[in-house]
């Protein structure tokens, strides 16, 4: 062993930290090397001196000072320490999580089931009651009253039964046709359509909620079974009336409304004259029973910006949406009522879609304007409706259909034309000076 290594080991040797073999070798070296032995001695003396240095005595009252400081700190930092707090919180946290899971998995679904069961019962009752029953929707109010009126009118003039005013190829005298669409003015239109309620009554088909296509032959007017709605619409179309959103002074009293009442949910469209006579559209989502969430999407037929509203029909049965100002140039729009998943009634799978076409004229025309002529032969219903909408100044809302149309109209009032077309498509049409309702089955 060399001196260099020996010197390194001296400290550990003194501390008795050398293992036996190494210790023996160092001792051998120390016996042979007086210099290293002297160095060991020097180190021993050094360590002795250091070790003899007495500990510095504690300052007076040090322990008491620390004790006071610790108590101060303990007052600041609450003693039930962090771990204990957490240990206490853990079960509470667990209970919270279990509670939340229970809520999501058990309580909430149960609520949904109950709600659905109630809706189902309501619906079944409604179905059982048949077409005469009042669906729980506001716009059906007053129908019974109007039906009474109609029946009374029919009794008064039975001779006029079955006389259609407008034929597919025939031209109706303008002067005579125009007043026909003002139901409250005279009994004529009521007389024309008296047949319809009669047939519905004799048929007595229970379980059919909405009457089918007009019973009037050819392209006769629709039976005014729902003229009450027309009247109501006309009323509702007045600015300031309840449910009619105020959007400034540009709106006129003249509005057109088309209704498409579906089995459970519907979009209602009402138009008012905006700036330059262009229509401002008000959408109203309605359901015959609380339904859940819907999205109402309005998109132009061609490329363009679409608009979408989320409609919550779980609490109320109808919801008025903000006014929609269609940009100029887009006359055909697709209106989709999309049932959001989770709101479907049991037994119906997947989110349902209701697609309509909305035809917007570039300007709303006065209702008694005559449509000079129109001919639609083999045209698609969409084309025909778009054209009619433009020519008549009416806002039309129709279900999307692939049917083609063969129809010609010659110098008929706009109202008569749309009525004819709608009936050809299997729809019911009612119209008066202020509003039109298209009810599709």
């Amino acid at each position, binding site marked *: 062993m060399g001196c260099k290594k020996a010197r390194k080991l001296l400290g550990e040797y003194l501390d008795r930290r050398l293992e036996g073999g190494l210790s023996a070798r160092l001792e051998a070296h120390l016996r042979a090397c007086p210099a290293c032995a002297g*160095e060991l001695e020097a180190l021993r003396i050094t*360590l002795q001196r250091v070790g*003899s*240095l007495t500990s510095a005595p504690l300052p007076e009252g040090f322990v008491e000072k620390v004790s006071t400081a610790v108590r101060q700190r303990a007052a600041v930092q609450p003693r039930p320490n962090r771990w204990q707090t957490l240990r206490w919180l853990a079960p509470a946290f667990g209970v919270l999580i279990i509670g939340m899971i229970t809520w999501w998995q058990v309580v909430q679904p149960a609520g949904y089931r109950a709600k659905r069961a109630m809706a189902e019962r309501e619906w079944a009752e409604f179905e059982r009651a048949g077409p005469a029953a009042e669906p729980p929707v506001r716009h059906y109010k007053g129908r019974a009253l109007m039906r009474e009126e109609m029946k009374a009118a029919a009794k008064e003039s039975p001779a006029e039964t079955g006389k259609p005013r407008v034929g597919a190829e025939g031209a109706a005298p303008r002067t005579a046709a125009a007043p026909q669409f003002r139901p409250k003015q005279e009994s004529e239109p009521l007389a024309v359509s008296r047949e319809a309620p009669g047939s519905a009554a004799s048929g007595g088909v229970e379980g059919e909620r909405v009457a089918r296509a007009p019973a009037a032959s050819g392209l006769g007017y629709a039976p005014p079974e729902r003229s009450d709605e027309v009247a109501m619409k006309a009323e509702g179309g007045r600015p300031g009336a309840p449910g009619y959103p105020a959007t400034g002074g540009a709106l006129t009293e003249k509005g057109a409304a088309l209704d498409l009442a579906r089995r459970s949910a519907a979009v209602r469209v009402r138009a008012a004259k905006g700036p330059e006579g262009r229509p401002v559209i008000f959408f109203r989502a309605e359901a015959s029973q609380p339904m859940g969430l819907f999205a109402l999407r309005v998109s132009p037929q061609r490329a363009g910006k679409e608009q979408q509203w989320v409609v919550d029909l779980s609490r109320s049965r109808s919801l008025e949406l903000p006014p929609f100002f269609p940009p100029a140039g887009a006359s055909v729009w697709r209106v989709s009522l999309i049932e959001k998943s989770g709101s479907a009634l049991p037994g119906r799978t997947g989110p349902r879609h209701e697609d309509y076409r909305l035809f917007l004229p570039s300007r709303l025309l006065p209702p008694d304007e005559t449509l000079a002529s129109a001919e639609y032969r083999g045209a698609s219903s969409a084309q025909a409706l778009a054209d009619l909408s433009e020519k008549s100044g009416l806002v039309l809302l129709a279900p999307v259909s692939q049917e083609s149309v063969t129809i010609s109209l010659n110098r008929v009032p706009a109202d008569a034309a749309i009525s004819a077309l709608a009936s050809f498509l299997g729809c019911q049409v009612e119209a008066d000076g202020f509003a039109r309702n298209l009810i599709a089955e």
Partner: protein
Amino acid sequence: MADIEARLDEAALIARGQRGDLAAFDRLVNLHAARVFNLAYRMLGSRQDAEDAAQEAFLRAFSGLPKFRRGAAFSTWIHRITVNICLDELKRRRNRPQPISSLYGARDGDAPDPMDCLSAQKNSEDPAEIVARRAEHEEVEKALASLPAQQRAVAVMCDMEGLTYEEAAAALNTGIGTIKSRLHRARQRLRQLLAPPGEQTAKKCSQKR
């Protein structure tokens, strides 16, 4: 056996302290205060600073008590806290430099109390011996103070307080190898400063081989 009992006692005290028993913590302070203060004093060289550091060490130990691992040695832990505080303090001092010689003696008025070294021994000794012992102590203190902080910490712990290498390594959060080499260097320097004259022949030997 006694050692094990002491450790068990200490463990019980720590457990009580962790439950918020302040009296138990007071007893822990009582048990360790002397060594903690001595370490701080040897590291910092000033009674006032040492007292502050020791108090801070116990406060930190109190705050950290809930995190203290059962079964670990409280002494090692409190040593580590103290050394860290002292090293921080020394680092801070280095930023406002002070001659190391001022550490012992005239620093902010706390001249070493002549009674310091006497309190342990009874006042029954010869005054001349007292003076001699005092001079001896001052020499060793100066030698210790001249060491770099890390070496000083190891030297104080191992050579003054009698900690094992393992305990020192745990207290300084390093390996045993580091402790050994630091201790070796510290001892060499102390030996140069404190060894009796006439033992310088050693150099020749190492040069020869």
